[in-house]
């Protein structure tokens, strides 16, 4: 089959690789119909996530048609499914309490040591990501092997086209969980750093959950425009002193909850961020966290901090004093996708949530490398790239 493979930093290419096959009883094979490039794929592209090997097939946002099933799969050939990017067994302690991204069993044993050494515990398997999370072949390909197909994928009714539901795989539940983690109350002002896909979906979700005001912070004019079209007020951090503006826009209280939808490759002007850029370039696992640092200073006393943005290593000069002294609550984590699928599919069906506005480009799988390059270099206008294996160039 054809698949997008990682070859090195900022070097991906579409290659011919082995077709997947059923290995375990609960497996299914999915023929991909639509798959997207995620902002977190750019962390892999930039080589800042450890444990990615040449030849790895990327892609963790995908959907398609069931073409083969193992004896214990509950799927049927021909069904259309969206597959969660988190691989979860559904039967361990963590899955039983809906902490699906903490699944004990989906990360192969021999891959768990690195995560255990770095974080104290290994996390669940993820599709198309680092070998820290299993090294599973991803969905930017013609076919993918999906483990635990009896508990992961959600079957999509025929009347909903791919583009309406594709983002159930990751970014919609991720934006939703980000808002849920911010514990939004009706009178709240919520500030969201980063108007990429997750930030935009977090804005949408926060408004659905009843926030009285959502303020979006970015520096790309088109992305800020999208945020405004969803109902957010916007701040361009290149034009405005963010801290001062947030204090004024929240009546001098500070914002009630903050969401860092930027993560480890934050832009920023402060001297510590420039140092972090240098440290990250030499590969010592330093995360740039300037958005998060700013958010922690901006949030009100006793406020809430939600971190959907991806971090992978250590952070220097973290304002822990502000977290403790201001009495902040912090919630974060890889998304427990399976927990949200039914609820969010229902909200797509009844029109509460529409995510199709995000898609800026559609490309054949063969042009995936071009998609990565442009998504990286033209972030203002390339807001979301959907790859279609069957599409004519």
């Amino acid at each position, binding site marked *: 089959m054809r698949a997008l493979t990682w070859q090195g930093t900022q070097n991906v290419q579409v290659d011919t*690789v*082995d*077709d*997947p*096959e059923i*290995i*375990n*009883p*609960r497996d299914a094979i999915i023929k991909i119909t639509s798959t997207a490039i995620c902002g977190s794929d750019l962390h892999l592209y930039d080589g800042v996530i450890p444990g990615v090997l040449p030849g790895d097939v990327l892609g963790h946002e995908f959907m398609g048609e069931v073409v083969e099933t193992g004896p*214990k799969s509950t799927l049927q050939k021909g069904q259309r499914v969206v597959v969660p990017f988190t691989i979860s*067994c*559904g*039967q*361990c*302690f963590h899955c*039983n309490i809906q902490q699906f991204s903490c699944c*004990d*069993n*989906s*990360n*192969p*044993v*021999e*891959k*768990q*040591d690195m995560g255990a050494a770095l974080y104290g515990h290994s996390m669940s*398997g993820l599709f198309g990501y680092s070998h820290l999370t*299993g*090294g*599973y*072949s991803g969905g930017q390909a013609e076919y993918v*092997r999906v*483990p*635990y197909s009896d508990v992961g994928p959600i079957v999509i009714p025929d009347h909903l086209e791919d583009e309406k539901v594709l983002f159930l795989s990751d970014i919609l539940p991720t934006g939703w969980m980000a808002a849920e983690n911010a514990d939004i109350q009706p009178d709240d002002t919520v500030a969201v750093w980063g108007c990429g896909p997750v930030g935009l979906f977090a804005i949408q979700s926060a408004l659905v959950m009843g926030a009285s005001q959502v303020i979006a912070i970015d520096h790309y004019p088109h992305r800020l425009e999208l945020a405004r079209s969803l109902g957010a007020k916007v701040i361009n951090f290149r034009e405005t002193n963010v801290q001062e503006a947030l204090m004024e826009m929240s009546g001098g209280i500070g914002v009630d909850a903050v969401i860092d939808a930027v993560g480890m490759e934050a832009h920023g002007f402060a001297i510590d961020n420039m140092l972090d850029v240098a440290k990250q370039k030499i590969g010592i696992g330093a995360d740039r966290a300037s958005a998060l640092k700013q958010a922690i200073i901006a949030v009100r006393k006793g406020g809430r901090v939600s971190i959907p943005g991806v971090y992978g290593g250590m952070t220097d000069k973290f304002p822990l004093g502000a977290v403790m002294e201001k009495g902040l609550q912090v919630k974060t984590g890889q998304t427990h996708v399976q927990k949200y699928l039914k609820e969010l599919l229902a909200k797509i069906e009844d029109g509460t949530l529409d995510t199709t506005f995000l898609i800026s480009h559609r490309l054949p799988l063969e042009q995936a490398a071009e998609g990565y390059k442009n998504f990286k270099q033209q972030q203002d206008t390339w807001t979301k790239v959907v790859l279609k294996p069957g599409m004519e160039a």
Partner: protein
Amino acid sequence: MEDAKKGLGVAGLAGLMLAAGAGAYLSTRKDKRHTSPDDAPGHTARRGFGAYDVIGRTVTIARPREELYAFWRDFSNLATFMENIVSVKPTGDNGRAVWTILAPAGRTVEVETEIVSEQPGELIAWRSVPGSQIDTEGRVTFADAPGERGTRVGVRVAYKPPAGELGRVVAKLFMREPEIQARHDLKRFKMLMEAGEIATSARRKDQTRAAKQEQSPAYKNEETA
């Protein structure tokens, strides 16, 4: 004989984890000479245990105690999740079994064990029989976890490293260092019991670790035996 010992040092230790039973070394309390003011299991001590190495690992498995005990007590099941075990064959009804353990270069080592203590649903303890190439004992315990969490499965194994420190160093190179092996084997046991299968991120069957291992001459010998 020296060569055989080295072989065990490199590869056979995985089997020790299975074979459990080394009395005092396996105690949950540290011994009196080294009384320590804490309640941690003995095998987590920073100090050594003289001639024996002691490894231990506990996992919580979301399945009933009796089910896990029954699966383990049928020793022939152990090779399904213990990576370096080619087979475990009961040699009679007295609890004796012969473990065939994978060694480098397709060789195998055999160790015979006997059950020294058994409490249905709770504990199985074993040791190598006199004259065995490996001097080892160990045990596996099954205890109810709090609330609905299932069962705590603990494995403790003591063994004499056959070729001393060198054996351990070489073993590490082969990823067959017993501590690592015990941890990996118990995680596979948990996967098998909870999810019904052992996770692999391979795309094709012949790329899985199990498939690659089964291509080794040791397994071929087993099939023709």
